[in-house]
Each structure stands twice: as structure tokens, then as C-alpha cells.
């Protein structure tokens, strides 16, 4: 786990990286705006499987601007992962991982 880092350019930005062991490893590198509670950038890495693989780029770009609340994130992931095959995480667990990054900041 990487400790939260405040972005010098935007004092409201917080950067957190956390890794989770689901069926496979999933690491979330998240920058979010703590005032608006929205995702500014996100990178999802790990040893999971997702077909087609390029879907990950779409997920990362489409999540930008999304409210950092489980229902919002989950709804977005359900839509983006529709028709994809994946192993190592579920939509619920990936949503949980993303939201947990925010909770690190609040501790």
C-alpha cells in the first residue's frame, strides 16, 4: 500500500495505490478530488485476466469523472464489462477495491 499523497498542483487531489488479493491480484492507483469526490485518474494493474484486454484502457478512461461512490462505480463497471470475460476479480470486488482507496484517506 502506498500512503496517500496530495497533488501539489491541486490541493484537493489525493493519490492512493492499494493492492488486493482476490482470485488474482488487483492493484488500484487512484487520484481523486476529495472536494468533489470524483475520480481524476485511475490505473488498474495486476495478474488478472480480462478478454478483450483493451477493455482495461476503456475502463480507466471512462471512470474519470465518476463519483467515488460504490453504486456509481459499480454501475459504470457493469456497463463497461458487459460481454467481457474476466477472471481474478468480480464487478463487486473491483468496485470495492476502488472505493477502499478513498477510505484510506479518511483514516
Amino acid at each position, binding site marked *: 500500500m502506498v500512503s496517500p499523497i496530495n497533488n501539489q498542483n491541486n490541493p484537493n487531489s489525493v493519490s492512493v495505490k492499494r493492492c488486493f488479493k482476490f482470485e488474482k491480484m488487483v492493484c488500484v492507483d487512484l487520484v481523486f478530488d476529495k472536494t468533489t469526490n470524483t475520480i481524476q485518474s485511475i490505473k488498474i494493474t495486476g*495478474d488478472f*485476466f480480462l478478454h478483450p484486454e483493451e477493455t*482495461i484502457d476503456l475502463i480507466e478512461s471512462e471512470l474519470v469523472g465518476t463519483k467515488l461512490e460504490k453504486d456509481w462505480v459499480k454501475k459504470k463497471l457493469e456497463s463497461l464489462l458487459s460481454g467481457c470475460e474476466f477472471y481474478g476479480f468480480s464487478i463487486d470486488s473491483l468496485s470495492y477495491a476502488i472505493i477502499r482507496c478513498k477510505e484510506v484517506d479518511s483514516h
Partner: protein
Amino acid sequence: MNMAIDEYLMTHVTDTPIFRIYGWSNPCVSIGYFQSIEDIDFQKCRIEAVDVVRRITGGGSVFHEKELTYSFVSRKYPPKIIDSYQEICQIIVSGLNTLDIDAKFSPLNDITVDGKKIGGNAQTRKNGVLLQHGTILLEVNKEKMFSLLKVPIEKISDKKIPDAKYRVSQVSKTFDQVAKSLKDSLKLVFGCQTVPTKLKQNELESCKKIAKDKYSNPNWTLKR
């Protein structure tokens, strides 16, 4: 070049599946499509003259040195991910069993002997074609392997054995012995004939181009 050949085969396979057996001219670390480059010690790889390549398949990082590597490319495969790994890994398990190695398929994508990993597998699927590549460790230098690969603490925290290197083993057979066992196993598992082939010169040229444009390109290797 190895990853380029696998990609080339994937885009040129006919209705006849391809099973390719290969080794590595230089030690190499391959990282999965979704992995961060920070999951390996990139600097140490450079110092130790170990190549680094990003795969088109998911899964974890692999240190390729004294091993047999294979790829299976097919237009016919079970749609469910776990079923496809099980079916293709049966080639490996049956082959190793004929060498008196008590190999087992360990879902999702490992081959184990006595509970220790001796091989891993990774898949991609594109345009109705499945590519699975995998490894069988013939001889393993665990110290070197785990000095190059970073195993996240979260990955080993729920294991009974805390140190990842105690969960890895080797088959202690020669490349040729294992290669022959896999060829025989293909006939046994699929009930098919195998026809040995080599890439033609023009095909090799195409592979070299893929290797140069993609797999040697830092934009690809460092993309995540």
C-alpha cells in the same frame, strides 16, 4: 521474438490448431498485459542482462531461463475460461505423467507437482482465436528468479508458506525429454496426428517486424 511469433501465429492460424515448443536464447522476464512495470525489478534485469518483454496475455510475471515454453493457438476452444485452461493443460499434465512426474492441473492456470508450481499459463482471445502460452520449469534458480520478480506482500499473506520461492519447483528433465512427451501427449489427448512445421522465411520476416515495432518498443513494454 518469441512473443512476436506467438502473436503472428494467432493472426494466421487456420482451422488446424498450432502447438509450438520453444526456448529462450537469452534469459527474459515476461510481464502480463495488465501488470505494472513496477511489479519487476527493471533495473536489476538490466544489470543482469535479462530481457524484459510485455505479453499480450494477462497473468503474472515469469522468469524464463532453463525451461520449456509452449504456445497453443486454436480457433476451437471451450468458451469458459476455466474449461479452456483445463483442456489445454491436460496436454501438459498427461505428457509429464508419462515421464513419471505426478503433475496436476491447479486452477486457474498452474501446473503443480507435490503442491509446488512447476509451470504457469496465460491466455488471450482475439477474433475467435485463443492463444495460450505456458512454461515448464526444467531447472530453476530461485534466488535469481525472486530477485527479479517482485511478489506483492498481499499475494503471499494468505498462503501457508510465506516465502514464494518455496512454492516453486522444477521437473529436472531435459528439454528434449519434455518436448517429446508433449508431442506424444497431443496425440493421446486430442486423438490427432501432429505435423512438425517450421516458419518460412517470409513468415519469420513478419515476426521480426512485429518484434521490432511492438515487443522491442518501450511504449509497449512500459505501457503500464
